[in-house]
Structures are given as C-alpha cells and as structure tokens.
C-alpha cells in the first residue's frame, strides 16, 4: 500500500483514492453522505484564489470543502502522480 497523504496536500489535477475518513463530526457525516467513502476516487480540481477552500471532483460532480476538513481525510495518490 502506498503512503497515505492528506486530501489537502494533493497537487492540483491529481487523483487519489480515499482511504481513511474521520468517524466523528457533522462535516464528515455530510461528506460521507455526499459520497466520500473509503475506496472512492477523488480529483483535486483547484484551490480557491486565496488558497482555501479546495474544489474536488467526486462521483462526477464538483464539491468544495475547506482545508480544515480536507486535512483530516487521508488519501492514496494514484500511481505515478506526485503531491506537492
């Protein structure tokens, strides 16, 4: 298994597979219900002009979340991609 990194540390344009997800918290319940589950693949589309929040593509739609949440979501970068 490749090393896990946080969702917020992905480089723009890279894809990754979600691996670990916090169990508690309203934010994470909602993210989970919106389809972010272990095994889901996500792509970091862009960060906002001021650096926060970030925009990801998940299950074919675009979602924005703050780095404060994305910091707790661990992902496995797709093979051959780099993190920043």
């Amino acid at each position: 298994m490749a090393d896990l990194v946080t969702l917020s540390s992905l480089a723009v344009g890279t894809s990754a597979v979600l691996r670990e997800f916090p169990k508690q918290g309203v934010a994470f319940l909602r993210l989970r219900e919106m389809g972010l589950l272990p095994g889901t693949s996500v792509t970091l589309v862009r960060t906002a002009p001021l650096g926060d929040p970030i925009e990801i593509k998940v299950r074919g739609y675009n979602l924005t979340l703050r780095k404060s949440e994305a910091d707790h979501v661990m992902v496995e970068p797709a093979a051959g991609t780099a993190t920043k």
Partner: protein
Amino acid sequence: MTPPPAKPASARASVYALVGNPNCGKSTLFNALTGLKQKVGNYPGVTVERKVGTAYTQHGQPLTVIDLPGTYSLAARSPDEAVTRDVLLGRRTDTAMPDRIICVVDATNLERNLYLVHQILDLGRPVILVLNMMDVAEAAGLKIHTSRLEHTLGIPVVSCAASTGRGLIELKLALSRPDLPLSRHAWDVPAAIAPAVSELQASLQDSDKKQPLIARAEALLLLTDQDSVRVSGSTPLSPRTQEILSSWEKRWAADGTDWAAALVNARYDSIGRLTAEIIGTSSAPSGPSTSDRIDAWVTHPVWGWIIFGVLMGVMFLSIFTFAGIPMGWIENLVAAFSGWVSGLIPAGDFHDLVIDGAIAGVEGVIIFLPQILILFLFIGLLESTGYMARAAFIMDRLMSKVGLNGRSFIPLLGSYACAIPGIMAARTIEQPKDRLVTILVAPFMSCSARLPVYLLLIAALVPDEQVPVGLKIGIMLLMYALGTFGAFGFAWLFKKTLLRGAPPLMIMELPPYRLPKIRDVLLQMLERGGIFVKRAGTIILGLSIILWFLATYPKLPDNQPEGDPLAHSLAGRAGHAIEPAIAPLGFDWRIGIGLIQSFAAREVFNSSMGVIFAVEESDDESANELHLRDALRAAERPDGTKLFTPLICLNLMVFYVFAMQCISTIAVVKRETNSWKWPLFQLAYMTGFAWFICLVIYQTGRALGY
C-alpha cells in the same frame, strides 16, 4: 408488513411532496407542474419557505404539490432540511404527511442523487422517480436504461427535462395513476447494525408510538447521525429508545464498529450496484466540460476577482440607476393617488391621517420595492446560473477571517443597496447562527437611504464649491468604509461571544453552469417581493401611522398660529426629551426630531430638517437642496453659535452609519428571525454603539478645539 393504502382519500386532492437534492431542477419542475397556482409562505415556527401549488393530472384531476426544501440526506443539519425530513416522516402538525412522494434526481449525477432516494424508499410510501436533466445527460454521452431502473426499483420512473417541458406529460400520467406500486426496496442493512435497527424500530413503535415503517426509517436515521437530538428534532426520543441507542453505541465503541459509516457505505454499495446495471456511456466524456472551462476563468487568481468585481459592480450600478426610474413612477403615482383621495375627504384630522399617515406610510414601503426586486433578480440570476456558489467559493477565505463563510457575502453586499433584500437573501446560509450573525450586521452596510443624508451633511460640512470634489468623495467613502468595518468587526465579535458555535462548514456543491431559467427567476423575485410587501408591509404601515401621529399631535392651540407645529407635537417633545441623551454628542432637540423621524426611512431626515428650519419649498429640487444646505449652515444654537459645525456634521454622519434607524429593517428582521428578541437587540446594540462612537468623536473633537 402491510403497505399503507396507496390510494388517497377521495375527500381531498391527494398531496404530493416534491423532494430532491439542491440543484436538481426541482423548482423548475415545480413551476412547470403548478404554473402560477402556487402559494408561498412560511412553515410556522421556522423561517423556511413553504411552497404549495396545485397541479393537474393528465386527466384533469387537481392535486396538491408541496415543494420541500432541497436536501442531500434525511439526516438533516439545517432548518430547511429538517422541514423536509419532518414532513416526510409525518412529524409536522401543520403539514399532513404527503400521500405520495415525487423524487427528483439529476440524471447527470445519479449516484449522489440516489442516496436521498434510497433513504426515502425506506419510508415505504408510494414514490415516483423523476430523472430530470435527461437532455444534459444525453448530451454528455450518458445512457440510462430507465426501464431497467423501473424494473429493479419497482416504482414508476419518468425521464424528464423540466426546463424544456420534456417528459411532463408522462409525469402527469404517472400522477394520475390510481394506485402506485410500492418499491421492492430490498437492501441489506450491515450485519453488525441490523440487530440494533430491529431493536430501535421495536422501541420506536412501542414507546414512541410510530408507524412500523416510519419507526424503521427513524431507527436508520438515528444510526446515521451520531447526534440523536438533531435527528429526533421536535419529537424527543422516549427514554427507552434513548437507552437502547446509547447501549448499542457503547457496545460498538468498545468493539470498534464504525456504525455511522457502515450504513452510509451499505447504501452507496447498493446504489453502486444499481447504477452499474443501468448506466451505460455511449461515448467517453472527453476533455474538460464547459463548466470546467468557465471555472478556469471565474476562479482564476486574477481574472476571477476581475469577473467578480465587474458582476458586483453591474449589480450595484443597476440597483442605483435603474431603480431610480420606477421609484420616480411610484412617487408620481402615489402623489396623484393622494391628490385624488385628498379631493374626496374633507380637510381635517381624518384627511391628514389618510394622506400623511396611511398613504405616505404605504409609499414608504413600496418605494423600496424597485431596489428589492432588482437585487432579487440579480441574486436569482446568480443562483440559477451557478455563479453564486463560485462567489462563495472565492470569498470564503476572506469571510472566514470573521468566522463566517462565503455564503454571507452576497447578503452583506446587497445590504449596500438596502438591508431588507440583503437580510432576506441570508436565507441561503445554512447554519442558523451564521445566518443570524449576517442578519445582525447587515444594516451597518451604508444603504441607499443614507445617501441623501450623507450628501446633505457633506454639502453643509464642505462649504463652497471651490473645494476639490475629491474631498467630498473621500468623506463619502469614509462613511461606507466605517459601515463595512463595523459589520465585519461585529460579525467577528458575535462569532467569538454571543453566537459562538462550531466553525462554519463550507461543504458545498459547485453545480455545473446552466442558462438561467428566466421564468423561475422572475417568479422567485415576485414571490419574495410579495412577501416583503405583505408581511413586512403591515408592520411598517402600522409603525408609519404611529410616527405620523407622533409628529402631528398634539396640535398647536388655535391662539398660537405662529408656533412650529412639529416642535409642539409629541415627536417634537420627544426631540426635547432625548436632548439630554444626545447633547453629549453635540446634537440638539431639533436634530433629535430628525433622528426620530428617520425611523420611517433615513432620508426623511432631510425633509424633517426642511420643516424644522422652515425652508421654503419650490418645485426645483436642486434649489431646494441648496436652500436646505444654507439653512443648515445658518442654523444657530440659542447662544448664537453655529449648530451644524463641521464636527457636528461629521458626527451626525457617523451616527447615521452605525445607528439602527429603520422600521422596515426591524420588521423584516422580526420576520426572518421569527421573534422580537433579535430586532430589538439589533436596535439596542447598533444605536448604542453609534451613540458611544459619536460621544467619543464629539468629546475628543471638542477637547482638540474644533
């Protein structure tokens, strides 16, 4: 398990609830189904819009359609989502449980949209599934086997494109079916959780007196959201159910079962199998979509701000320029009407009550309408195209500095035109506390009613025309800046103290850009305008009549015709009465009258000053302004010193920046917060702060010899 009767009682029109994710085109479908036959109100007790309309089946049978607020899940987290959950679970006493449910899903984004459908099918109610935006899905190369979906779920599935009207007839045919099949909604609750579901369901049936299927749905919700208080909402759990729940939670905590995740995962697994079966792509999506290409500009570090600035600038300019035209019409119309009525009623107190109290009061309400409508038009366009979410996306970082999120930006910006539409626009903010903070600080933004006051006072402050225009503009900008800093400062303070809460969430979908549905936007604009006129209007009208009364009675005694009737009136006496309070700010009783009368609308200050300083009115407005300016500059205190010194003018402007002096805003805040507590708090804290700041400025200014 006996299914509930699918056939509704024939005594009344059957009730359909329209549910779906945000951005799935639900409102467009609602408008297409009901046309203009809709009623917009509020759910009692909460400020959530309640939209009910009448639609007709293909066979002409009338039926009632409730447009429930959009939600991603029945595990509600905002008041809007809670309404959807409570109506579907039959918890609301004011809204009967719908007979049938129309689930609208965005066909381009089936997986996430089906999550809510999956939860709703648990309810065991008759459901019609509408696959909306099929045109977009087809254009994107998605092929959806609706008949297979219909077969697997066992419920009617209608493909539809609400924006073009495609599929509406099929939907209306489905609506007229006398009986609807119930879904064969078989999915496996994860083994680790299944016993808890049965136990909770049994307890909810026995101790909480719920119907079997509702009990099961509630049990599943209790096991989705860890916060059982949030799930149970207004109907607290019975002690027994609560006990069962906590004992299971303890057990799972001990053996490390991630129970909340298990249910969501199981649902998505089941949805994944379903979509794998029914979706085929005829052509692989190639390259970035149109939305991606637009976003590359709109959220660009440089261009993003330019586009944002231009859009906001256009919005603002339209409000200030275009609104002036219909505002002129309204003034003329009211003047003509008031002249006509004036001829009908003989002169006397009743005449004055109708003309100066009621009609002028109504004018005070509707004069704001053009600005409000234009702002709602822009907000509607921004929402309907998908830009609103991008504006929140790029502004979020700045707003987070004061503890708010990006969604608070547009309501605050709109408040520069008029706080009323700004406050009403705060409904798009999900978290109740953030919404309240936004509402509380919105009136600090200098609205257009303050503009005439600033202009008059700047004219009085900066005497002659030789002074560079830049100085006047500079003072004006200073006032706008003060208000803006005030708003953000207090937002920060409230989020730190009074309304401290979890840091605001910024989990938001960025929907694909779409062409705006002009019909939907106009309809929404008119509805919101109507709400303002109807609900706020009655309060404003009442308060306007009171203000008129205060400014009229008691009248001058007949033997004293030379006196000033305003000074003699209750308002005038109130001016005297508040003089001790405002004297430390350098204001005398005459300014006090202006302050009191400003509650009708801040610009009334100008006409109030005109009356007090007996400025002769002519038809030439600019001449009137000059006369008024000169009258202010000539005004003296009893000791012969000037009343409107530069320090006083400046101080008065600062007072207008910060003080809450607008009954219309108070009425709207009352409506939006559903209590008198917050508008009164707002009145107190804003006016108190204004008083304090002006005290500091005046006393410091005096000490420095100005």
